[in-house]
Structures are given as C-alpha cells and as structure tokens.
C-alpha cells in the first residue's frame, strides 16, 4: 500500500458537465476520500467546487485524468479564497475571525500577516471582516 496524500483542489464545471456525478466516481472508482468545503452552481448552470482529495499519488493522478475528460478545469492551488497581498495592510483584524489559523501572524516582530491556503476551509469570515477588502472569493 503506497502512502496517501491530500490535495486541495478547485474544480470549475462548464455548463454541460454540471449534471454528471463526477465526485461520486472519484470515491467509487479511484478510492479517494473527498472532503467538500464549498460548492456553487450558478444560474448559468456552471459549477464551482473546492475540495480535498485524499488517496495515493497514483489514484489521484488517474482520477484527475478522468476529471479532465469532462472538460472540467482543475486549479491545484485550491484558491477559492484569495488574499491580495498588495491590498492587505497586515493590520491583523482577520486573525481572530479565522477559525483554522489559515490567516496568522507570520512574523511576530513585524506583525506580518501570512495566509496558508492549505488550512483555509472557505468559511469566508475574512471577506466579511477585512477593513481593506483584501480577501475575496473566486466564485
């Protein structure tokens, strides 16, 4: 049994692919453990999905090859929530509102705010509280 890894992904489903149970096949046919953070279907019938997949490297690669056959685009950095570093002033108002410490003090001496995408669970609290609108949702 090879080692399992976890990848955070953002998938974009174009109009024609929204009704297909693609995630079901990731579990059933590729042995992946999936953890969905956030999903949205637009009135244009396009879909967005941010999720973790856990499995062997080989299974994940095969699963992604399968996903690609549906015209679904895969963003491996899983950027459902983006923080614009140019806009952020590092005030630190977001820190206490982020439940998973994805936003954290990266440098205590300078009080620089850091953002770890891997830890973000897409609760969107930072978007509501940021005084400078530095955080935004990709969808």
């Amino acid at each position, binding site marked *: 049994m090879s080692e399992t890894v976890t990848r955070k992904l953002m998938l974009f489903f174009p109009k024609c692919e929204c009704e297909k149970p693609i995630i079901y096949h990731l579990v059933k046919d590729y042995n992946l453990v999936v953890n969905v953070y956030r999903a949205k279907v637009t009135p244009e019938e396009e879909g967005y999905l941010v999720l973790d997949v856990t499995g062997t490297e080989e299974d994940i690669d095969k699963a992604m090859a399968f996903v690609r056959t549906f015209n679904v685009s895969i963003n491996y950095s899983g950027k459902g929530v983006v923080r614009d570093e140019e806009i952020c002033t590092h005030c630190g108002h977001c*820190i206490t509102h982020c439940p998973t410490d994805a936003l954290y003090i990266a440098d205590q001496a300078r*009080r620089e705010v850091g953002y770890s995408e891997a830890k973000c669970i897409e609760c969107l609290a930072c978007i509501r*509280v*940021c005084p400078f609108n530095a955080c935004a949702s990709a969808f």
Partner: protein
Amino acid sequence: MKTYQQINDRIESGKAVVLTADEIMDYVDKKGLAATAKEVDVVTTATFGPMCSSGCFLNFGHSRPKIRMSEAWVEDVLVYTGIAAVDVYLGATQLRHGDPANMYHPGEFRYGGGHVIEDLVAGKTLQLFALSYGTDCYPLRELRTYFTIDDLNQAVMVNPRNCYQNYNVAVNDSDKTIYTYMGTLDPNRKNANYCSAGQLSPLLNDPFYEVIGVGTKVWLAGAHGHVYAEGTQHAGACERTPGGIPKSGAGTLALTGDMKQMRPEFVRGVTLRGYGVSLALGVGIPIPILNEDVLKRTCVRDRDIMTPVVDYGHEYPQNTGKVITYVSYEQLRSGRIEIEGKEISVGSLSSYYKALQIANLLADEIKRGEFILAEPIEPLAKDKKMKPLLMRKKPS
C-alpha cells in the same frame, strides 16, 4: 544637550544618526543613555491605522461659466460646500449617496469618503457633480465633470484628530456579535481588538509633549506636513503609569499635508462592517534627541504601556467609563490576553507592519538629508480633560 539647529545641520550634511523607536531601546541598553544621547540625533516614530477624523480641502478652479457650488458630490460622496465657490471639504466617514447604511444590518459600507481620498491620491479619474442656486456672478446651476488630483489647484489633507496617544482594547460582553469602529466583536468576550502602534506610536514616545507640538513637521503618508493644532478630544490630563505613560486615549494631533505629495499605499479607505467607512493613514513623526530625558522616553517598550479593556457591548455605548482591566501592548501583540481567567484571542486594526515601514522610510529620508525637523511654535496642552456632552433642558 543638542539644539534643533545642531540636529538640522547634521541632517543637512548627511551625517545624522537616526534610529527607529523599534530599535532605540536595544541600542540604549547596549551603549548606555548618555553615550546614545550624544550619538543619536533623531528617533523616528510612526503609526498606521483608521483615523476617522480625517478629510481634505479641494479647490477645483472655475468652470466657464462659473458656478458657486451649493451642493456637490465626488464619486457620489457628499462633500461640504459651505465655504467659497469652488472649495469643498471631503470627510473620511461620509457615505456614498444611496448607501443603505445599517438598514440591512450589518451594513457592508463598501465605499465612502475614505475611499474617495484613496482613489484621489492614487491618481484615479473621479466624477464631480455639483448643483447651485445660481447668482449674477456665478450663473451655472449644474455641473458634471471628471478630474484627477493633477487637475486640482489644491488638495490639502486637514485632519482634526490623528495619532491618538493610546487607545482602548475593545471586547464584547453581550451575547450577540456587535459591529463597531473597533471591528467585529464576537459575543461573550470571545475576541479583543486594539488599535495602536504601541512602542512605535508617536505620542507614546513623547508622553509629556516635550518635543511634539504645534508646528512639528510630520511625515503624512509620504508628504511633509505638520501639526497645525492640538487634535480634537486632546486630553493630556489623565491617569498615567508610574513611568508617565497615559492609561487612556489622552493626547491627539491635528495634522495637515499636501495630498499631491502623498503615497497611495499609506492612504487607504476603510470598510467597517456594520459601522461605516473611514480612512487608514500612515503618519511618521521624528523625535529630535535634544537630551537624555527625551531619549529615555523614546525607549518605552510595549510591556510598559498599559491600555484599558472596555466592553463595547454595553459600557462604551452607554458612556459609563467602566474599565474591565488594563493590559500591556506586549500581551496584546502576543495574540492572546487573559482576563478573569479566560483566554481571549487578540486582533488589531492598526498595522505595526506598516508603521515599521513608515518609521524606516522616514529614518532614510532624514539620513539622506531630505527631511529637516521643525521646532514647535507652541506646546500641546498638558492639563486638558475630556468634557462630556450634557443633555440639558432648554433654559427658561
């Protein structure tokens, strides 16, 4: 002992020794007070945070035909026109026309006066809409045009209150989330917010207003401005630590500077959910090391600065003056404070990161001989107290 003239001579010859208020204490610990006072000419202080009592005077020049603006909006944000024909004052907390404010609570407040000021400094093209009743000398009754800061004759920031010496830590002891000018506060004292650069903050490095006064030259978002008066609500007569550091807001400064010289990264519109809009501003103030006493006061550390923790759920809005306890900026900057046995996570509205950047930028300017200090022409009052507004019946 040094004089302003001696320090300025050293600055002009490019020989001034300048340290930030973040560096000076370790330097003094190493070299001693007397030797450092001789060697160091200037200590730079700075702060970056929301300063609601900010705004600017703009002069548009005259259109053809001329207008005496009686009502005007920039980017749909109302400006004050009760002054000369084409002068206006744009305030940082003014909402955009039609903003639903807190009609749907908590309101979003995405754009207002502070954002207009940010856009202006950033060189964006903005819309001016003005109305008038028309006069013989100013016949035009309506005007809509587009302009940038370069088109204006003057764009002068005039802030009645900046640089609060110290400030409350806000918590919420009620059982529902509240939305305040100190940010979003979770119920049952779950989080705390503070707003000060602590040991780097200008008036905490000059607690008795010995060197910062009316006429002091300041670095205002990159422009060379100055203190034009004591700030509104300036109240130097307050409870202090044994070291002389105020344990409440205390002193404030009224600042002015030319917006055409400002840098956009230090002039930023602020959105406070459920509260309103504001302007975050970067200010740097140099402290001339005239003697050992002045130097000693710039060596203040976060652990020596105490600030009151106040409940914004009930006590602050009801103006009871009740303080839960005092905590130090060292505790606050650690990210957690303990009050009555409970650990509370701490956030901030003031950016130490930006303040440090400003202190270093100002230090560099002084070292290059590009920023000459100005001696105050009048000291700030030390004996003033803050008066409340009394709700009186009409005198008979």
